[in-house]
């Protein structure tokens, strides 16, 4: 390992700790507002000592139907990740294993999908859903299936890229061996490959869940009263005249905490997902 002079190390520590404070301070300071009683939400200078209360959470959760939004967010995130895995894992396997003429071009096309701004798909989706509803009576706007389908635009390519990487790490001989030993390719996949690649599937699922969970733009356009997600409701606590800060941060915490916990569980695999597997 590289030997670092003490002075350099001290400097590194100082800068990084300052950075860490700049990162964590707003998050913590904001988050404790969620536990403040309403009277001191906007006290200035800020009140640091107070009796913590859960009344904001109660209000957000029950009076404002936060549990419904939480449920919606869960249905949409879990549903869209499940569909993306179902469609994406087999495709990723094929890209990792089979040599065929268009495989490289198709993989590059999949990367290029990462570049498309959501507005470019969100806009026509809104119009398409509208026409479907008026013309054929198929209602997809403000429905879970509608959102789950739409979310495939960014989840599916990511699943394929990440999983392709995990499959490529395994020797092809693993399932070929099983095939010679009496199993079909699908049987070999199920009994031999899947148990090995399982951690990769979990990591892929978690990262995609985070993306779906945090998604705001497409939900804003395509969700409605029936399917509102947590990020969408966060904005509703800004009323024209005043902001219900305590309630807002209660919602923020409900959005944030699961993701931070998942990130801690995932930290080793994070880069693979965030870079879309371009780095390999």
């Amino acid at each position, binding site marked *: 390992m590289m030997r670092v002079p003490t002075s350099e190390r001290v400097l590194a520590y100082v800068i990084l700790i300052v950075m860490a404070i700049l990162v964590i301070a707003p998050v913590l300071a904001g988050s404790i507002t969620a536990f403040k009683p309403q009277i001191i939400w906007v006290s200035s200078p800020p009140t640091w000592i107070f009796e913590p209360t859960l009344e904001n959470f109660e209000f957000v959760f029950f009076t404002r139907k936060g549990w419904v939004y939480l449920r919606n967010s869960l249905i949409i995130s879990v549903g869209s990740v499940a569909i993306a895995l179902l469609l994406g894992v087999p495709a990723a396997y*094929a890209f990792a294993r089979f040599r065929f003429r268009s495989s490289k071009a198709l993989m590059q096309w999949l990367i290029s999908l990462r570049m498309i701004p959501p*507005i470019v*798909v969100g806009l026509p989706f809104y119009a398409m859903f509208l026409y479907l509803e008026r013309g054929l009576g198929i209602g997809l706007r403000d429905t879970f299936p509608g959102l789950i389908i739409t979310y*495939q635009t960014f989840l599916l390519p990511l699943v394929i890229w990440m999983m392709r990487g995990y499959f490529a790490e395994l020797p092809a001989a693993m399932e070929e061996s099983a095939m010679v030993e009496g199993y079909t390719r699908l049987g070999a996949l199920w009994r031999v490959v899947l148990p090995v690649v399982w951690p990769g599937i979990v990591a892929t699922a978690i990262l995609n869940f985070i993306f779906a969970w945090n998604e705001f*733009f497409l939900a804003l356009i395509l969700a409605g009263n029936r399917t509102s997600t947590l990020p969408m409701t966060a904005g509703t606590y800004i009323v024209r005249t005043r*902001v219900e800060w305590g309630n807002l941060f209660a919602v923020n915490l409900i959005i*944030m905490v699961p993701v931070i916990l998942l990130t801690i569980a995932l930290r080793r695999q994070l880069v693979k997902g965030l870079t879309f597997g371009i780095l390999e």
Partner: protein
Amino acid sequence: MSKSYRSDNSNRSFSTRLYQLTQRQRHWFFIAPALIILLLVVIYPIIFSTGVSLFRVTFASQSRPFVGLQNFERMLGNDDFIQSALNTLYYVVFSVSGSFLLGFAVALLIRRVTAGKELLRLILIIPITMAPIVVGLMWNWMLDPLFGLVNWFLGLLGIPGQTMLAQASTARLTVVLVDIWQWYPLVFLIIEAGMATLPRAPFESARLEGVSSWMIFRRLTLPMLRPVILVALLLRTVDAFRTFDIVRVMTDGGPHLTTETLSLYLYRTAFTFSKLSRAAAGSILMLLFIGLISALMFRYLYRDVEVG
């Protein structure tokens, strides 16, 4: 040669040839479902949008006259569109460079740290895990002119209260800073991962030869990290280009459109002013633009990385 083996194919049974065909085309069984969905949710909408942009479509009226490229002309001749495009460019330039420098610096610094490295890293990447909308709302609270922590802190230092988000002169920069705060961990993680994969031998030999740290950095680290740096820049660029969530909750484009981004402007055009066709034209222009930028960056990237 090819003739001779084609001819002995002809006397094979139908089932044999079917088996061969399924063996040779088996990848499609795996790929087709995903591919069909992607064509349906990405390619078809873009085609649809292109179609819409050539007509005058509104949500209210049933008639949809063909207007050719008129919507594109209108968009390009529209001051607000141009203004939001320029703002977007401003975001791209400053948010990308800011988050890049900060992320790179953190990646370099954290290598010099031993105890508490994992904890530091975990804290430092928190922003990227937060929903952009949550980040925006949180900073709204931090920057509130009356009770926000930032002004309170400035007050302690004797600096009078600022209304950063309400002033045209500071709003754009403030939003960019928040964007940097959220996204520098992406660069940090990518660069750190890239540095972990660098071979050690060249660095050890350079150090044995007495090359200075700065020269090692410039002549070895930077060139070897080039593909990684390009990936980081590429991803940051496409993300900055689509900025919506943070701006939407912090300034909603104001004051006086100084923070309006393309995504925000097109959203408004379509859903507030119901000019769907014009927004579609604008989004196609936006797609072409980002396509051009990333194609250029990609070509640069492909020169030395094997992608896929």
